């Protein structure tokens, strides 16, 4: 192993950024030193090792302070974003509640909305806890995020048709923040990745919120059946009915057949009816099914 090779190994004691910036120059100087001194003496190597031992820790500490400061600034931005999204989450749940309360709503739905408000409030609290940096450290924020995740999971079980916005804010954001909080002071890849995730969620959530409507049915569409009906069966359902839709309010619905499919006309709005079996239909784009008798 040559002297230069050993010196290159010693250079690993310096921070990567410093090596990238000055490593080549340092090796050039080492070559100069080797030309003018006997690189086989203990004195030469003692001076080399002493120089590395004296300067590398200080540079490492400076790099660490720099990265810690950057991480803390990013965490504060993420906390502000969390507070805003918590407020937005509460507002969203209230809008959902208002939209839902126009029609007949069941207990599961009410509980899901309440849990959603609770989870958003916890998110808001976690954001405030990160911003305030209480004397208990980041533990309150972690607890709030865990509780928010649990609440959101419970709401998701009760009400599977959450909007994309709710999923992003309710699950993605707390998970990313938790990862960031557990790796806050070490500039690790995982910590950095989670910070990026927080920012991505934060930036994409408003866009998703703009697209999402109360009671987004995209997830519901995955489980909706569209069972075939014979012409006679279709005919048996044609007629006028008094129907109470979960989110649409009560109204008179006229069911008619068009091009071999059943459709429902209610308040000048026509929707295709998807047969779920056992006399239950689900209007296309509506989350709840209705039994036609």
């Amino acid at each position: 192993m040559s002297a230069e090779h050993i010196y290159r190994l010693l250079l690993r004691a310096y921070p990567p950024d410093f090596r990238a910036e000055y490593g080549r120059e340092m090796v050039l100087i080492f070559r100069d030193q080797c030309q003018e001194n006997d690189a086989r003496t203990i004195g030469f190597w003692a001076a080399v090792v002493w120089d590395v031992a004296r300067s590398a820790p200080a540079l490492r500490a400076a790099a660490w302070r720099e990265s810690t400061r950057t991480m803390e600034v990013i965490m504060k931005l993420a906390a502000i974003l969390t507070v805003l999204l918590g407020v937005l989450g509460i507002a969203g749940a209230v809008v959902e509640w208002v939209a839902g309360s126009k029609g007949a709503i069941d207990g599961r739905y009410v509980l899901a909305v309440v849990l959603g408000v609770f989870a958003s409030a916890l998110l808001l609290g976690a954001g405030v806890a990160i911003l305030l940096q209480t004397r208990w450290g980041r533990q309150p924020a972690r607890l709030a995020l865990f509780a928010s995740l649990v609440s959101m999971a419970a709401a998701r079980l009760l009400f599977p048709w959450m909007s994309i916005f709710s999923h992003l804010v309710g699950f993605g954001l707390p998970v990313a923040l938790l990862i960031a909080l557990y790796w806050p002071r070490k500039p690790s890849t995982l910590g950095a990745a989670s910070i990026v995730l927080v920012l991505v969620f934060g930036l994409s959530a408003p866009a998703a919120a703009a697209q999402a409507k109360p009671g987004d049915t995209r997830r519901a569409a995955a489980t909706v059946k569209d069972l075939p009906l014979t012409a006679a069966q279709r005919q048996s359902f044609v007629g006028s009915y008094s129907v109470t839709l979960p989110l649409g309010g009560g109204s008179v619905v006229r069911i008619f057949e068009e091009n071999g499919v059943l459709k429902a006309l209610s308040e000048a709005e026509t929707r295709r009816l998807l047969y779920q079996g056992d006399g239950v239909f689900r209007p296309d784009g509506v989350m709840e099914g209705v039994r036609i008798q």
Partner: protein
Amino acid sequence: MVTKRRAGRPPEAYLPLPPATFHILLALADGELHGYAIMKGVAARSEGSVRLGPGTLYGSLKRLLKAGLVEEGGERADPERGDERRRYYRLTQLGLSVVRAEARRLDAMVRAARRKKLIGERPA
């Protein structure tokens, strides 16, 4: 070339300078130098009492660049050594003001020591 300069900070605000930093700035007062030339200049000027290793030198240069006391003067091969291209460094106007202020400060201290007869009129 963009170097960070702390506007409005007087040269005296950087004092006292660490010995290694003062020696580096003093070496650069002669003009643009690359790293090894700075090291040789410092060793020669201090008659071997101050020997900078590459780590100490570039650690100090990094801080001086950040403070705006030194700036990079480009890369070129040293005509005397005739080998690979080396990065040159030079003093900024602020760096020159700071090294002058430090020299004045040290000079005042030496004069005070002379008045107290702690040292002779001329260095031994």
